[in-house]
Each structure stands twice: as structure tokens, then as C-alpha cells.
């Protein structure tokens, strides 16, 4: 029983009667032959399997081409575009997968069943270079430095370092000069709301009459003249507002005296956390929830934060109505909207 033999052998004491401190590595285990190594039939069968797998790939490629031409252009019938696209995607994808998996599984199967599976051993050598090479490398570096005379010519060293350090300015200067646009970060503090700007529905741009706003309803609001802005999207990213009509008795507080109109309040829609649109309104609790990070604001109480990662209340837009009954802004917001930044209070 070989097991027992190695077993007792290893526990054999040294000449002086003591046992070794550690076990010895027993060496490579015996190689087990595969069925295909012993049985020519099994070997032949494996070969046929590999052949079949590569054939699957060829068939897959052909099927891909057939599907491409047979399915036709999915956009010909606009009413069926969704299902036609789905069908095309499925067929092209499946045939592509077969074309690829056939090659892959064929090659792996070949390697596993037919190629020599005797484990081989290769020696490792220390990664570090030998002492002699290190010495020679050091010498080469020293010789190089010596030849250049860099240690003797201090002024040259300084000049080279100085020139190399300065030249990137030629690329950096125009890059930095232009990359931030006009670099006027003061624009972050203002929006296009001004005294008299009408509140309009997003995205139609139709102005809103106070009488259109029923209690409990919510309007997504943009300035009426948004499209006249030079960059409407940039302006919209700051100016969007949520308009909500509450029962005036429910309003606990507002950010300014007379900033609402008959229970209609307007708050910035841009979250004071990292700027997502605060889009979810819960009528019962008067809470606004930001779907990105769940900051929750109480519209009845100055839009103060009641939960979540935001710190500041949503800025309130002071509103009133004009002669025709349309809701208009009294002024811009009284503080910067959106996420905090270093100089926002400056």
C-alpha cells in the first residue's frame, strides 16, 4: 500500500532520532491518463466533437448572413419598428454567438481532450539581476553621467530643468484660457428670472394663470422667455421651478413675506444636494422628494430639508400675478440655486 509507505517513510526520524520540523513536499502526483489516451475510440470521438463544434461556428456565420438579408430593413414599417428591431437583434445576436462559441468551445475542447495533458515543470529564477549585472548597470549610469558632465556644469543642469519645466506653459496657457469658457463662475449665482417674467409650463412654454392652479396640483415651470436665451439648456438647468398650490392654512412658513400668491408657492426644482431635479411630490405630506438621493423637502415649511443628504432648503422664487392674472416672478431667486459651491454666499 503505497499510501502507507510514504506515510511511514516521512515520519522516519533523522539519524539522531529527531523528526524534521516540517513535512517534505511529496513531489508531483501521479499522472492520470484520460479516457482518450487509453481508448482510440474515445479519442476519435473527441476529435469528431471538436470538428462538430467548429462546424457549428461556420453554420452560425452563414446563418448570420442569411438573417441579415432575409429579415430585411426593420424601419420599412414604422408601426412595427419595435418588434422588428427586437427580432433582428435576437437573430443577429444568436447567430453571432453561435459563430463565436463554436470556435471557442471547439478550441478549448481540443486542448482538453486531445492535446498532451502531462503537466510540465519549469524552473523559476530570482527576479533581481545578479550582482555583476547590477554593478555593470551602476557603472554604465555613472559613466553616462560622467560623459555628460552634468555634475560639473551646474548652470547647464539648471537651464535644462528650467526650460523643461517652463515649456508646457505653451500648451497649458491657451488650453486653460479656453477650456472653461469665459470662466465667469458668477453666472452660477443668477438665473434668468426677473421681475415680471411670466411662469410658463414646461415644456410647452405656455404662461400659467393663477386660476389654472388648483389646490394640490403641481406644475413644472420654466421662464416664459426661456427659448430667447442664448443657451436655453444652460438657463433651464438653473431656472426650472416647481409650482404648487397649497391650502393657505397649511403653509407653516415661507422664505420671504409675500413671496407666494394665494397659497401658490414656487420653489427651485434643482436639488441643493448635487443638482438632480426634485420631481416627486407627495400631496398628503406636502413633501418633495429627490429621486436621485432621496433628499426630502417640506413645501409647507419653506421647503426645509426633512430627510436625506441635502442641507439647505430649496430656494423660493417670489411670485405674484400681473394685470391679466398670469403668474409672474417678483425677482430672481434671492440665493444661488442648486448644489453648494465654495463661494456661493460671497
Amino acid at each position, binding site marked *: 500500500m503505497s499510501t502507507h509507505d510514504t506515510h511511514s517513510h516521512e515520519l522516519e526520524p533523522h539519524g539522531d532520532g529527531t523528526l524534521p520540523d516540517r513535512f517534505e513536499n511529496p513531489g508531483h502526483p501521479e499522472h492520470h491518463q484520460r479516457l482518450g489516451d487509453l481508448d482510440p475510440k474515445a479519442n476519435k470521438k473527441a476529435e469528431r466533437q471538436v470538428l462538430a463544434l467548429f462546424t457549428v461556428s461556420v453554420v452560425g456565420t452563414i446563418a448570420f448572413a442569411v438573417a441579415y438579408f432575409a429579415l430585411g430593413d*426593420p424601419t420599412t414599417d414604422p408601426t412595427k419598428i419595435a418588434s422588428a428591431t427586437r427580432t433582428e437583434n435576437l437573430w443577429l445576436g444568436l447567430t453571432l454567438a453561435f459563430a463565436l462559441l463554436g470556435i471557442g468551445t471547439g478550441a478549448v475542447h481540443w486542448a482538453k481532450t486531445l492535446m498532451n495533458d502531462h503537466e510540465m515543470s519549469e524552473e523559476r529564477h530570482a527576479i533581481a539581476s545578479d550582482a555583476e549585472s547590477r554593478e555593470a548597470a551602476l557603472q554604465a549610469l555613472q559613466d553616462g553621467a560622467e560623459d555628460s558632465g552634468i555634475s560639473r556644469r551646474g548652470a547647464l543642469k539648471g537651464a535644462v530643468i528650467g526650460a523643461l519645466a517652463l515649456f508646457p506653459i505653451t500648451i497649458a496657457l491657451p488650453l486653460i484660457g479656453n477650456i472653461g469658457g469665459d470662466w465667469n463662475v458668477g453666472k452660477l449665482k443668477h438665473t434668468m428670472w426677473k421681475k415680471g417674467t411670466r411662469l410658463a409650463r414646461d415644456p410647452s412654454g405656455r404662461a400659467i394663470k393663477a386660476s389654472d392652479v388648483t389646490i394640490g396640483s403641481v406644475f413644472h415651470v420654466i421662464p416664459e422667455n426661456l427659448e430667447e436665451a442664448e443657451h436655453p439648456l444652460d438657463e433651464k438647468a438653473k431656472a426650472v421651478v416647481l409650482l404648487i398650490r397649497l391650502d393657505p392654512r397649511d403653509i407653516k412658513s415661507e422664505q420671504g413675506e409675500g413671496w407666494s400668491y394665494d397659497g401658490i408657492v414656487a420653489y427651485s426644482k434643482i436639488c441643493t444636494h448635487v443638482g438632480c431635479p426634485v420631481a416627486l411630490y407627495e400631496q398628503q405630506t406636502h413633501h418633495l422628494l429627490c429621486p436621485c438621493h432621496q433628499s426630502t423637502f417640506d413645501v409647507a415649511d419653506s421647503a426645509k430639508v426633512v430627510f436625506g443628504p441635502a442641507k439647505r432648503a430649496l430656494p423660493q422664487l417670489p411670485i405674484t400675478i400681473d394685470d391679466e392674472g398670469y403668474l409672474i416672478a417678483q425677482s430672481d431667486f434671492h440665493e444661488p440655486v442648486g448644489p453648494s459651491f465654495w463661494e456661493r454666499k460671497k
Partner: protein
Amino acid sequence: MTTTSTPTPAAKAAGATADYLDQRTGIGVVVKTFARKIFPDHWSFLLGEIALYSFVTILISGVFLTMFFVPSMGETTYTGPWSSMQGVEMSQAFSSTLRLSFEVRGGLLMRQVHHWAALIFMAAIVTHMMRVFFTGAFRKPRELNWVVGFTLLILGMLAGFSGYSLPDDVLSGNGLRIADGVIKAVPLIGSYTSYFVFGGEFPGQELIPRLFTVHVLLIPALILALIGLHLLFVVLHKHTQYPGSGRTEKNVVGYPVLPVYAAKAGGFFFVVFGVIALMGATMSINAVWNYGPYDPSPVSAGAQPDWYMLFLEGSLRLMPGQAEFVTWGGYTVSANIIIPAMIVPGILFTMLAAYPFIEAAVTGDRREHHVLDRPRNRPFRTAFGVSIVVAFFILALAGSNDLIATHFHLSINDITWAFRVLIFVGPWLSFVITKRICLGLQRKDRELVLHGHETGRIVRFASGEYIEVHKPLDAHERWLRVQHEAIRPLEIEPAEDSRGVRRKGYALDRMRQRVSQVFYEDRVEPVTPAELAASHSHGEHDALEADVHEPTQVGGGSHLVEPDAETGAEGRNPQI
């Protein structure tokens, strides 16, 4: 050049080509060195390969996409076949993505293949990194390659984020909006950095073309270069191998590149690509035509980033807002963003990147290691790794707290509070539990080596005593369980020499020793030959051999003794 007596025309041509190449490149030496180079075999070594092959898949599908994608924020009105978007104002980026999906035949497949491949790429990187971590493959001489791999992880995240933002849809646009909010939170330079990225105010006109350059040029070039370096190191160091009979620090046991690995690895590329193609065929991903073009006003609930960014999202969600404050002088410090988006990930990633160097310092080990550790044999490392994984996992779950709330009908506030507690308790608890499990598994190994396998054979002695016969392990089975070294805490020289003069550098040594004790105080030593011999003599061999003809090792019942070598270097029992 051929050696056969009657060369076939094909062999002649191959020989002539080889000769032509060698005379001009000297490639013969390279082929001689590498063609039959040995690589060890293990399924876990495939994880890195999956990362490589999914990256190649990304390159192939990505080149296809660049042929049709228009990286521009220029406004256009959609007139294509997708009816629900007809007449909608959108950027050319979004409209060309719609064109890719509906009008370019096979374009949708390529988009889905590209996106799935990116998710697989990141998953493969993370699991490969876990394999390397838990088996200690990062030890000397591979520390630098760990750092290269770590950098690839970061670049992969950037590649993914810059990629899924390109279609300029409302979902990714909100992702960019969040990125903008995080950037603005940087003290002092936040708003300028935001202008730097967006070319002015958010969202501006510049971002998509800029992201495009980053996504198709800068990051892929860096990733390719670092993959080259990563693989160069692998060849230079030769691959690590799992412990086992015949495998030592001085050899590498496995199969040659030609033909086995050429076939297996080459084939595996097609398998990876094929599986990704299958995913692209059957699983819809990022159906941007349902989201619509980016607009700063709408947002959808339940929006999630790609999985590898979830931890950041979760981190942001967990932080209570109270942390934001205004300094003396009126400057705003958004600690409610800086801490979760920069400091927490900063700490986690720094620990990950620096771990090989920390472990080397506290182990005081300067030897090369090519035989991998079994995770159980390094309880501290394994427990530490698990606790980092758990921290990321909790943050990722927190990034899905809204989905958890809607799926399980729970209060979002309660879930958030639960995660706020869990992010502190979870990593700690998983550390303790993992360490206990590792030590327990090591004891089980000792038990097996000392007393062998249970056979279920009960033997009755003449005296009426029953014992169960145990079958001893064979040398190969045993070697796996005794081959490792149990690392002991560092021993340092005393603070004062014999004349009572305080030694310089003692404080630093003491600190290293303390950390070393944290790492290696609790340990289970592998069985030594002497212990095995001693355990043999517990069994009443003589009495047994009369009854049992097979060479067996007895144990069990009253003869099963506790392992007696679990004593620390100072003669203390480990703290259990």
C-alpha cells in the same frame, strides 16, 4: 530550415517565412523562450483573462459604434423612424444613438454588446482583483503589478462612466448633473473645476465631444498601455501557482503556451465574446429611446448608474445633510458631499492600493512568493479583504435603496437608517466572522491531518470497547494542509540595551510590532511531523493491528484529542 526529409510545400513556405522574419527581427530567440513557456492551470486564473477578452470585445464593438455615433451637442429635430421621438428637439449625440439603434442594421446589437462587455469587464476586474488579494498573489515581486491592476480598475470606472454618458439621454444626463454637483463641492476650486469640465455652465455645449475624446482616445490608450505592462509583468514574474504536491517557490507547474494555452486562451476569447453576444442578443440594456434626450427638468424614479458606480451613489445617499457648513468668512464647505464622494471612497481605495505594502511592512518578509496562499491560512488578510468587499457591497445596496423600498414595501427612511448603521457595523462584523471561519477551517485541516478521514467503520475490541477507524491522509492530501507557514508577529529588540541606553528607532519598531500583532497574533500552526507521530501513538496501534489488516490510523471516541499546538510564540493561547 525544416528538418523533415521531404518537406511539404506548406512546410517549405512556413520555413521560408520564419527564416525571412528571423533574419530581420531575430524573433527566433523570443519564440524559443516563450513558445513552450509553462503556465499553471486553475479556473480562478481565467478571471483576468475574462477582463482582457471583454476589453477586446469592447474595442471591436466600440470601433463599430464610432462609425455612426455623432459626438455633438448640436440641437436637431428627430425625424427618424422611432415614432415616439418624432419632432422632439435633441442633441445630435442622442439622435445618432437612435439611428444606431433603429436604422443601422446590427447597430443595436453592437450597442448592447458594447455595454454588456463593459459591465463584464468591470466585474472581471473586480473578481480578478479579489482572487489576487485573497491568495496573496500581490506579494513580492508582484506589488507593482498590483498597483498597475488597481490603476486599471480606476480607468475602467472612468471608461464606463464616460461611455454611458455619451448618448446624452435623460438618465445619463442626470448622472452628469450629479458629477457636476460633486465637482462643485470641492473646496476653493469647485466651481472653476466644473467650468473646466463643462466648458462653462452645466450642461453647456462642450461636454459630449470632450467625453468622446476621453472615452475613445485617452482612456483606451492608457488602458491598453497598462494592460501591456500588466502582462509584461506576468511573463517576467511567471505566473503564481496554487500550493500542491510538486509545486514549490522555485518552479512553475502547468502546461506550455504552445499548444495548450494558445488553444485554451485563444478559444476562451471566443467563448467570452460569444457569451457577451448572447447577452446582447437576449437582454436589453440602456434602452435610451424610452428615456428621451437630456433635459434638466425631468428625471425618473428608480434611476441607477451602472453597477460599478453604485457604491458612490449609495455613499452619497447615506450621508446626512447636516454635515454641510459655512466657514468663518462665509465660504461653503459641502462636507455632506465631500465625505461620501471623496473621503470614503478615497479611504477604501487607498487601503486597497496600499495593502501589499502594508502587509509586507508588518510581516517583515522580503522573500519572493510564487506559491499562493490558501485564504484560510491568512486569517487577517482574508478578513480584511472581506470587510472591504462588504463595505463596497453595503454602499452599492444603499445606492439601490429606492428599489429595495419599492420591491419590499419598506420605508425609504428606515432603509437609509439601516444602511447608515450597517456601513459601520457590517465591515467590522464580517471581519470578525471571517477571521473566525478561517481559524476554524485551519483547525479542521489540523484535525484531518492528525486523525485522518472518518471511515464509518466501527471496530469492537475484545474488551468490548468500540472505536471508529480513521483513514490517514495520503502524502498529497496532507501536503496541501501542512505546506504553509504560520507567520508570527515581529520580534523586535528591546528598548534599552544592556547598559540601559534607549535605542533609536524603538518607537517605530514598537508600532510595527503592534500592527504585526494585530495581523498575526491569532494563528493556527500547521501540523509538524512530530505532532503527527505523537498523535499516532495515542491510538492503541498494537491492539488494533491484531484485528485490522489495513494500515489505518485510529482516532475518535476518547482517542480523539484536541490539537495541542495552538499556542502562541509566547506560550499564550490565542484569543478565541
